[in-house]
């Protein structure tokens, strides 16, 4: 077995998230106090990152559009929240109850992922997008219409809350777990199989990739992590309401993935954190009818980024001015100091001027037969 060389840049995202988590946990654990809005924001950021990274598995790597990601989250939130509420009298509100709720929520969402993954084997593209959308709406509608005793009906399911001060630490640990699973999967041969299906399913099948297995794997994993995000959500809020998990929320997650660059996990993380932060800050500024400006912003992000990244006509432009090329240029410039040296003397020696008369005075002899030679093959 050959071990790959340890590369810092492959692990930089764990380190950054780890450091951020450590700083905030340090504040809380040493008795410092973070105000509630900061804690809530941290929880929301963690939930968004888990959602974005897991959706990126299906949209970015498998290349199928899922419009029901919020539906999986809904399943996780309701079942996890319900289990937590049931366990509260016996186990209290400790980490054990949280863990059981996580397992249940994650498992239920994963089962839904398998159920949706099965049509995914027969369908693709637009049809699959509609099926996932339909799934999200079905889940929403089912939970909305349950009786008040089981899942709270339209009023929402009241859920126990974990100790507010520490929930975000668990949330960020789960972010790291998600990241570890998704990133390692994508760097393994299984991940390459998934991207091969995205690039050309028929070719992948022809080279022996088990398309059924990998499609189901991607859908199930993605759903499972959405379920985890759902359980976190139920712990982070007093009630779980099905109206929250509609089409719009699925689109919001999709915006995070698209903004981060499809198939780019670190991009998804950054954009998930950014959009969640902006949303929370904007919600206080934009009230009433202005709140819709946020949706306008999302819509424009989706259209502009997707057209910019995919339009065949813009390919030349993209190749010339993308981030990678710019960084490479800057590096080259930094590494090579010669561009500042004064080489005027050298240029003075080289004859750079050509007299026009010199060119014109050259006799061009009519060469007979050259035409035939050139067109010889055409006859």
């Amino acid at each position, binding site marked *: 077995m050959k071990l790959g060389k340890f590369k810092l840049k492959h692990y930089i995202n764990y380190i950054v998230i780890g450091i951020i988590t450590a700083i905030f946990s340090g504040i809380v654990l040493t008795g410092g106090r973070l105000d509630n809005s900061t804690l809530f924001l941290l929880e929301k950021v963690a939930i968004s990152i888990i959602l974005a990274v897991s959706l990126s598995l299906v949209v970015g790597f498998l290349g199928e559009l899922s419009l029901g990601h919020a539906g999986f989250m809904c399943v996780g939130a309701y079942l996890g929240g319900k289990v937590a509420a049931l366990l509260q009298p016996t186990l209290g509100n400790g980490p054990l109850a949280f863990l059981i709720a996580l397992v249940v929520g994650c498992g239920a969402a994963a089962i839904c992922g398998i159920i949706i993954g099965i049509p995914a084997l027969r369908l693709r593209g637009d049809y699959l997008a509609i099926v996932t959308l339909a799934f999200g709406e079905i889940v929403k509608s089912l939970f909305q219409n349950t009786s008040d005793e089981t899942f709270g009906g339209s009023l929402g399911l009241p859920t126990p809350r974990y100790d507010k001060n520490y929930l975000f630490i668990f949330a960020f640990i789960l972010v790291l777990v998600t990241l570890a699973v998704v990133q390692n999967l994508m760097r393994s041969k299984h991940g390459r199989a998934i991207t091969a299906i995205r690039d050309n399913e028929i070719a992948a099948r022809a080279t022996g990739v088990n398309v059924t297995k990998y499609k189901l794997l991607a859908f199930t994993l993605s759903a499972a992590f959405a379920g985890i995000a759902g359980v976190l959500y139920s712990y982070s809020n007093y009630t779980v309401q099905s109206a929250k998990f509609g089409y719009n929320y699925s689109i919001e997650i999709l915006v995070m993935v698209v903004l981060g660059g499809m198939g780019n996990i670190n991009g998804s993380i950054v954009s998930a954190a950014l959009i969640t932060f902006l949303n929370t800050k904007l919600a206080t500024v934009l009230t009433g*009818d202005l709140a819709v400006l946020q949706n306008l912003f999302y819509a*424009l992000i989706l259209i502009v980024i997707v057209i910019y990244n995919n339009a065949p006509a813009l390919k030349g432009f993209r190749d010339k001015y993308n981030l990678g090329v710019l960084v490479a240029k800057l590096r080259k410039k930094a590494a090579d100091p010669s561009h500042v040296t004064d080489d005027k003397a050298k240029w003075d020696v080289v004859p750079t001027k050509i007299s026009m008369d010199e060119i014109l005075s050259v006799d061009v002899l009519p060469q007979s037969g050259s035409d035939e030679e050139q067109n010889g093959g055409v006859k």
Partner: protein
Amino acid sequence: MEDILSTLINGLSLGGIYAMIALGYTMVYGIAKMLNFAHGDIIMIGGYVIFIFMATHNPLLAVAMAIVMCVILGVVIEKVAYKPLRGASPLAVLITAIGVSYLLQSLAQILFGSAPKMVTVYDFGTIKFLGATVQVSALVTLGVTVVVMIALTLFVKYTRLGRAMIAVSEDRSAAQLMGINVNGIITVTFAIGSALAALAGLFYLLKAPSVSSTLGAMPGIKAFTAAVIGGIGSIPGAMLGGILLGMVECISYKFSAIAPYTDAIEFSILILILLVRPTGFLGKKRREKV
């Protein structure tokens, strides 16, 4: 008996609206090979245009303006958002279409506010039919839809433009080699689809006289369901699927036990149909080629 009859007629009229939207979907999907998510929102824009021009108290002018504006909007959307992505991956086109749909909804909400606007286009009144009270507008909806469907079928079968559309839908590059202006055909398709959407907007206003920014979102998705049930790309299929879906919805609303689950039932039908017969009732099976 009267109850059953009025449910059936309501179902037919709702089915007519779905069929009208599904016709637009199926044309665009068949020819441009893309799911135009914004189609439902063009219905909503049509509704708002009717609302604006009803200030003149002239229903015909309002409807004509709605059709014109929707056609312009549809063509502009196609040129600005979808045309640059021709040849790109279907996923990119789909996401852009969702973006356009979102854009139209939020623009409408900014321009007209989130509260629904009330607008009565024309009151056709009611008639008694076999003892049941029937909205005349329901019959108008159904009648217009049937006429439009027949007209579209004839148009596609017997005119040069229509046959060019079939050619483009069957094989785009071969059609191009035969001298068909593919981009032009796609634009015309979007124009026709948007005109149908404007009519669907009118029917919605005849059914319930209010328009809001989310008017078209759900009907759009349901009409896509209808188009899939009937077989995407098939004009009679869109009609069949629309009527079936409208019937299911109205019948389901009749029973209080399942009424709250109506949406869930409709979407479950969609998933089942896609699992059992992805080409729908009247769609043609196509093999995927390398």
